[in-house]
């Protein structure tokens, strides 16, 4: 077990290296000149050149990458061009809000998705099934920003049940709408996966054995059925965490949520390259960690899975 975790962490190193390389190249090529973005087009060329030299932007790309990596290896993510603060400090400040949002969205996705999926599987081929699957399709196909605004309109503006936006110092009411918005897509996927996984499992002979024992249908489905059907759902949730991170910038922007996503959006707008790089790297790290956790949970859920290096 420990060997497995260590080897998986080792495998993460080249992945993270690749992430830095690609992000570095893309941001430097595609985002354009950060100094121009800061100073405007009519700035004094001398000043521009001085600032560029100060930030090391006058050096060739490979040289800058080497410098960046050299610092990264000792844990230095550099300084934000905009704020002049260490990127690591900014990230650390923003991470809790995003983590809260992502976890809440995942809870929403799992609870709504699995409930809908179970109901659809149990009422297979009925109107209820059709309704659940239509709802899940809506969840999957509705754009995050649009859903967010509609939820604000309905629940915040018209009904006044929840605040319109903002973090609210971590108050629960502020979390509800963003979590629903961000979780809807995953809930849709999870509902469909739960339904098909459960339908597959309920055909198995051990389910008949469980019924032959005289167990209640609820126990048959939730214990014998779901426990076996949960592996593909877990996999999906692991991958889904990646989608949550992708969705976070949009959701956070709609709800003025002070998280990493909004930080990233703002940083891209400001051509704040160290922050863009740092946030991307952190997203990649979270994604890898989530997948590792899913694989570890696999072994807990299914005794037939043996973790080998």
């Amino acid at each position, binding site marked *: 077990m420990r060997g497995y975790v260590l080897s998986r962490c080792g495998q993460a190193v080249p992945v993270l290296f690749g992430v830095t390389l690609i992000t570095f190249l893309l941001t430097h090529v595609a985002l354009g000149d950060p100094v121009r973005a800061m100073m405007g087009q009519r700035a004094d060329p001398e000043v521009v050149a001085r600032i560029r030299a100060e930030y090391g932007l006058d050096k060739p790309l490979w040289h800058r990458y080497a410098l960046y990596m050299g610092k990264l290896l000792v844990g230095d993510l550099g300084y934000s061009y905009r704020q002049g603060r260490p990127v690591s400090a900014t990230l650390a400040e923003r991470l809790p809000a995003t983590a809260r949002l992502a976890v809440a969205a995942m809870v929403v996705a799992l609870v709504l998705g699995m409930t809908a999926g179970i109901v659809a599987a149990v009422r297979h081929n009925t109107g209820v099934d059709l309704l659940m699957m239509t709802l899940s399709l809506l969840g999957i196909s509705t754009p995050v920003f649009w859903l967010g605004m509609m939820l604000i309109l309905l629940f915040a503006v018209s009904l006044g049940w929840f605040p319109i936006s903002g973090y609210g110092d971590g108050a629960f009411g502020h979390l509800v709408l963003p979590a629903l918005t961000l979780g809807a897509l995953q809930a849709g996927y999870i509902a469909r996966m739960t339904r098909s996984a459960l339908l597959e499992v309920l055909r*198995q*002979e*051990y389910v*008949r*054995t*469980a*019924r*032959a*024992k*005289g*167990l*209640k249908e609820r*126990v048959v489905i939730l214990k*014998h059925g779901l*426990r*076996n059907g949960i592996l593909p759902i877990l996999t999906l949730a692991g991958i889904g965490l990646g989608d949550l991170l992708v969705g976070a910038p949009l959701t956070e922007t709609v709800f003025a949520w002070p998280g990493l996503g909004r930080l990233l959006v703002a940083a891209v707008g400001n051509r704040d390259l160290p922050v863009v790089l740092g946030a991307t790297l952190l997203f990649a790290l979270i994604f890898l960690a989530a997948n590792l956790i899913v694989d570890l949970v696999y072994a807990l*859920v*299914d*005794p*037939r899975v043996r973790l080998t290096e």
Partner: protein
Amino acid sequence: MRNGSLLTVQDLRTHFFTGEGVVRAVDGVTLSVRPGETLGLVGESGCGKTVTALSILRLVPDPPGRIVGGTICFDGRDLLRLPEEEMRSIRGCAISMIFQEPMTSLNPVFTVGEQVAEGIRHHQKVSRREAWDRAVEVLRRVKIPDPARRAYEYPHQLSGGLRQRVMIAMALALGPRLLIADEPTTALDVTIQAQIIELLTGLQEEMQMAVILITHDLGVIAETADRVVVMYAGRVVEEASAEQLFETPLHPYTQGLLESLPKLEAGKRHRRLTAIPGLIPNLLDLPTGCKFAPRCPKVVGDCWPTEPDLREVRPGHWARCILA
């Protein structure tokens, strides 16, 4: 004939409503089991043996299957009229079932101890600890070596024979009065088969329970059954005591089954096996008369227009054939 029975199935009809039409998997089956006796239920695959068994426990998958007619009397109560909740209290308690494939019939993600204990806990409302202890006791009873340790193992860690012993333990945990064993040895090695049959018959005597033994293996029937019901195309075609059946089979189908058994006779080492010609009929498209007529070596003109009734040809020996 049906007096003093523990279980009486009368004119049971279980049909499957499929896209291609109605499959009459069980069509008018009547049989009975007395307390403590072993009833052999014999026939080729697809003749309705398993569906009959599942109907008794009301476990026929619905849809597409449905019990459309008949009565199933167990201990004076018609199981088909019981509310689902009462039916559940009978399943796994008064009537249990063992399935053919011990690999796929056990849940892969729970320990075998848990799978045995679960039923005990559910039916008798005892504590987890006590249910577990009793489960270990039952595992010991089905002669699983070192049961206290084995109870913590998962199905994939056990051999086929041990898995089937776990299935048996699960079925017998609450001392059922009727055990339905559906091809309990088919998936096992020959040497293990004999052990499992021996275990079953031993436990049956000990626990005084009735057994419906479903099999296509006439050898197993000869060793264990008191009475035998032969099924063909969803119907009973012959019923007799085991002795009568093996000595003087009346229905040509039963005769065919017996002749297709390999025999060891001195001096006749290379005798070819006799097979019943043709295939089991398509249940969607059965002949109007005797269902076996198309494959029957003794078929006559009268076999075709109407289906013969199940008649008592000799005391206790019934056959569905005009020639019997």
